[in-house]
């Protein structure tokens, strides 16, 4: 498969962080009593590889701290990987940053905005950074936000007066406004009420079906992943422990008297490892 049909190629990506273990005086950092230099290395993403085809909805599941958001940040040029390569439609995220940024946008779990500004002012700011004119931004903003179920008058009220669900819809509008060909959705429905969640999920389906967008979705909602994703990678401790279609993943686990769900897959693949670690500790 050539680069034109491959939206994302992640090859052997590794990212680790150095964490402080609390304050120590410099002259005590290497002493025997301190037991080291007061710092430890945490491997957040460990030699992860996968490919996402153009027009595909690719899910990443994993427990908290499994490296999902770190991976998304590496793809969106916010973190530099320690090793490996990431290509977005053939462009390397570290060498061809601006080209990648033009193709990608992201929605994260926190809908981060200038809270005193209105959705329109926030989106105008974001859209201008991507070269859009005021006129096209206004038209598109009204269209997308109303499609997402936001009333016209709320578009001109400060963000701080909006519910979390409404803010998250504005965050989705901000990402979609720039018409990215690769959309990174990092837990976009976490903390939303069932109605808002459904509206966001329906919008993602519409993006996939009508706008030919490639979507990378991380979520803790197994039903959401099952319904939206063409393929799913399960991440645990920074490593890919499984990667397949939802149906094939479900076929991997034992039935236990009922039709296996993605939750069963998740528990079996990530839970087993926890047991192994506990055993090692003992």
């Amino acid at each position, binding site marked *: 498969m050539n680069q034109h049909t491959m939206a994302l190629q992640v090859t052997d990506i590794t990212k680790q962080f150095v964490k402080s273990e609390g304050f120590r005086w410099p002259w005590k950092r290497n002493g025997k009593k301190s037991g080291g230099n007061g710092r430890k290395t945490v491997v957040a993403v460990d030699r992860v590889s996968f490919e996402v085809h153009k027009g595909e909805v690719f899910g990443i599941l994993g427990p908290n701290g499994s490296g999902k958001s770190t991976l998304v940040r590496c793809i969106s040029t916010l973190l530099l990987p320690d090793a490996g390569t990431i290509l977005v439609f053939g462009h390397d995220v570290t060498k061809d940053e601006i080209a990648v940024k033009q193709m990608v946008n*992201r929605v994260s779990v926190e809908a981060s905005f200038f*809270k005193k500004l209105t959705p329109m002012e926030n989106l105008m700011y974001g859209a201008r950074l991507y070269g859009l004119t005021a006129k096209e931004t206004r038209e598109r903003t009204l269209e997308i936000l109303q499609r997402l179920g936001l009333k016209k008058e709320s578009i001109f009220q400060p963000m701080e007066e909006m519910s979390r669900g409404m803010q998250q819809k504005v965050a989705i509008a901000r990402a979609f406004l720039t018409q990215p060909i690769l959309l990174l959705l990092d837990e976009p429905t976490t903390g939303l009420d069932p109605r808002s969640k459904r509206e966001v999920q329906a919008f993602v389906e519409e993006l996939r079906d009508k706008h030919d967008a490639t979507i990378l979705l991380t979520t803790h909602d197994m039903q959401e992943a099952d319904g939206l994703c063409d393929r799913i990678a399960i991440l645990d401790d920074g490593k890919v422990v499984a990667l397949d279609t939802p149906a094939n993943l479900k076929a991997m686990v034992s039935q236990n008297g009922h039709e296996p769900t993605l939750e069963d897959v998740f528990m079996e693949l990530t839970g087993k490892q926890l047991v192994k670690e506990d055993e090692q500790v003992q």
Partner: protein
Amino acid sequence: MTQIVREFRASYAFVERNFNLVKRYWGWEVVWMAYSIANALSITYIGAGTEAITGQVIDTGYMILYLLVGTLVWHYLSVVFDNVSEMIAWERWEGTIEYTFMAPISRFTHMIGQTLFSLVYGLLHTTIILTVVAFFFKLDLSEANLLGGLMMLIAGSLSFIGLGIVASVLPLLFPERGAQMTHVIQALLLLISGVYFPISVLPEWMQPIARVSPATYVLEGMRDALLDGASSGTLLGYLGRLVIIGLAAIPIGLLVFRQAERYAKRTGKLKRCG
């Protein structure tokens, strides 16, 4: 669409956003303006009171203007410096920093936008303060070279933009206390640049350091222009030095910022914190 139009639009995004924020935080703007006016008046009244304090006969009008130039120039340069250096701290506080850094624009465009806003905002602020202070004192500007003074201010802005860009690295590298750390740079510049006194009264070892500060040349040039009515030709020496320092400071600032951004992306410091 050409790249230049695209970059111009992106730069304007920062100007528009910042003016929108000024509108929304109008209460803070009123408080800040009242503080700045009170501060300028307090310092200028030291000049008015010098005769009463020392019991000596002195040229009070000259003294008032000397201190007024100091307080206005310092206010303007501080506003420019603060606005440029705060661009990271503010975005970190609002949580928008990752979205701005994900946008397909060069850091130069980002800085130009923030800088344009800070120059316009600084000039507006300083003009309002000057207008209010003028009501309290009988200022004799009949001999002043106002155009020369304005040229000094604009030339001095270049260096302060460069210094502001360097200072904005601190909140990038130190998410929790970086913004406060930038005040150290301002305090040192205030001490060595002869804002309220001639640098000749500083200890001898400090005077060569004062000659490195761009604020020293802005203040000396402004005082020559406004107090002594020095011609624009006479001010060329100051202007030349300020332009040279400014033209060096901005690329150095951008280079330092680029390195800091790379470090932040390597260590994960861009992530929202604080």
